[in-house]
């Protein structure tokens, strides 16, 4: 093959090689959330209640202990905590249900959740419930009508100390 043709061939090869690289380094664009969708993220950690209640040591029990151990007056038969159950309803329909076991070898740690839930944007009534004991009743509940804007991530947090569920990053329409 004569030289000019070789140079043309080489140019073509380089153009093709870096053309492929240039194209696939950005295209095709990937759409993972439709324009009318948005996300709800459930993200929090919460320690369930102990499975067996703690009790106060009796004076007799305390008397049997060495002096330096008598400061701790509460005794817990087990460190094991109850599973935390979380439910999320949207417009009366169950959106998500999960049972979160406590972490740790002794099942004594917090129950953690991180969950991404894509939903249609718009005005919705959301109801979140949480149960952190071995009984049947949900002891935390929060219901709110929110306006979920497309693409905007609403975060559902939970802090028992401040009353339970917190809906963040949403447009409230009705408390």
């Amino acid at each position, binding site marked *: *093959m004569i030289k000019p043709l070789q140079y043309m061939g080489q140019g073509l*090869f380089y153009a093709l090689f870096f053309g492929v690289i*240039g194209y696939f380094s950005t295209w095709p664009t990937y759409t993972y*959330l439709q324009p009318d*969708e948005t996300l709800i993220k459930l993200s929090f950690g919460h320690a369930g209640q102990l499975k067996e209640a703690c009790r106060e040591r009796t004076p007799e029990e305390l008397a049997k202990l060495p002096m330096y151990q008598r400061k701790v007056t509460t005794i817990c038969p087990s460190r094991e905590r109850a599973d935390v159950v979380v439910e999320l309803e949207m417009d009366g329909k169950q959106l998500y249900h999960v049972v979160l076991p406590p972490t*740790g070898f002794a099942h004594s740690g917090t129950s953690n959740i991180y969950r991404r839930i894509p939903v249609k944007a718009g005005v919705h009534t959301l109801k979140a419930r949480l149960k952190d004991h071995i009984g049947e009743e949900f002891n935390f509940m929060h219901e709110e009508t929110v306006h979920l804007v*497309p*693409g*905007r991530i609403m975060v559902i947090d939970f802090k028992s100390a401040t009353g339970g569920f917190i809906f963040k990053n949403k447009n409230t329409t009705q408390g």
Partner: protein
Amino acid sequence: MTTSSSTESLARRTLLRFEGALNKIFGNDLNPFYHLGALGFFFFWVVTVSGLYIYVFYDTGVEDAFASVEYLTHEQRYLGGIMRSLHRYASDALVVVMLLHLLREFILGRYRGARWFAWFTGVPLIWLLLAAGINGYWMVWDKLAQYSAVTIIEWFDWLPIFSVPMAGYFISAETLDNRFFTLMSFFHVTVPLFILFLFWVHIMRISYPVVNPKRGLALGMLLAMLVLSLVSPALSQGPADLGIEPGSVGVDWFYLFVSPLLDKWSAGQVWALVGGITLLLGVLPWLPHRFRQIPIAEVSLKNCNGCRRCVADCPYEAVVMRPRSDGLHFAEEAVVTPDRCVSCGICAGACPSSTPFRSEADYVSGIEMPSLPMHGLRAAMTADLAKLQGDVRVMVFGCDNAADIGKLRSAGVAVMSLPCTAMLPPSFIEYALHERQVDGVFITGCRESDCYHRMGGVWTAQRLAREREPRLRGRVELGRIRQYWASSADFSGLASELESFRASLRNGRLT
């Protein structure tokens, strides 16, 4: 002595044809497919140099990271912007040549036997390179970074080693700390350093590793990358906002394909895929296959004078010199490292005692292939030469891994295929031509710059050009020797060249 198998996979044939076309465009010397490993090194250095420049201007911080990259891209487009583009495109090219390199070595079967080491050490490099690239994309902290970081962290959260989901840190700007970017910067330096270390390990069991592509090829690649950087500069995709889901992003499919895959498959399935690929690639050299290596080289101390030629020529560092153990007056002796020897026979071809002019019938060389001893080759060749008829008699020496020379055999043509053409000591050529046993000697083997045993073609050419020991002696007429390098895809060209050689001998035009 065997002839190369005529049954080849479709992939091999396709690859050889494609590379043949590239040879016509680039020449064997600059064929990019013959330099994929060296191109990997080249792109790595482009990434390193451009990365060092970017690093000077990069700020670690939730707000600062994006702003600093934007400054570099737009305010300093003439240099910083180009450096950023080179950094991205060289990284992408690195992945492409790495995958092509892996695929090529697999198709050509260059991962079995003693070559397992380079193959095996290459497997972690795949994941480390991808990890370094993904990590780099996060540092920009644009919408793409946000999408990639969240999905990858969620993927890692699937592993039962994290009690608290790490993805929780990416819930809002308040939960994400500046230290995250400091950590990413640290990883983006240490992971490539580890990659460089693994590059060294990857090539440590081969002699004369080619770590730099030919200048023309490197220049071509650099120029093409520069053009791409100017035509389509690397840009960010808007600042990350953890309160807003981008929904649609321009993905770098060379590095970030895992994130869209996680959208289709569960985290467990993607982990199974990664684990499965790693396991399969890792054990591939030991999976059952038809390849059978002939017994490895053996040293005959009685005939070894410690000249070091076998050490110099072994392409796999399988022969080393040790202090003499047999009391002879030589300082050193050659020792074969069994798990590094690929049985190519190049060492035997380099040994000065391999000459067929030795008087003993069952002579032994200083280093030999036990199943293909030099005295056996001489006997086989002599027997073949005695049968030759016709006005032009030619001896063809070839290689088991290239074109099947068995098909060239005829009344006037004798053939001898060796594990590698460089197993042939030049003295055998002289021996064949001696006293007009043949009119000419035709040497063939793998295509130029693509020897199955790496250095065989080069060593043979240098020995015949009298530039390397053992040299072809000066009294041998070069006009009676022809070299033509041909893969199994080039048989028709090989046959034509042989005919042309015979015609020239017939006509007395010894060119």
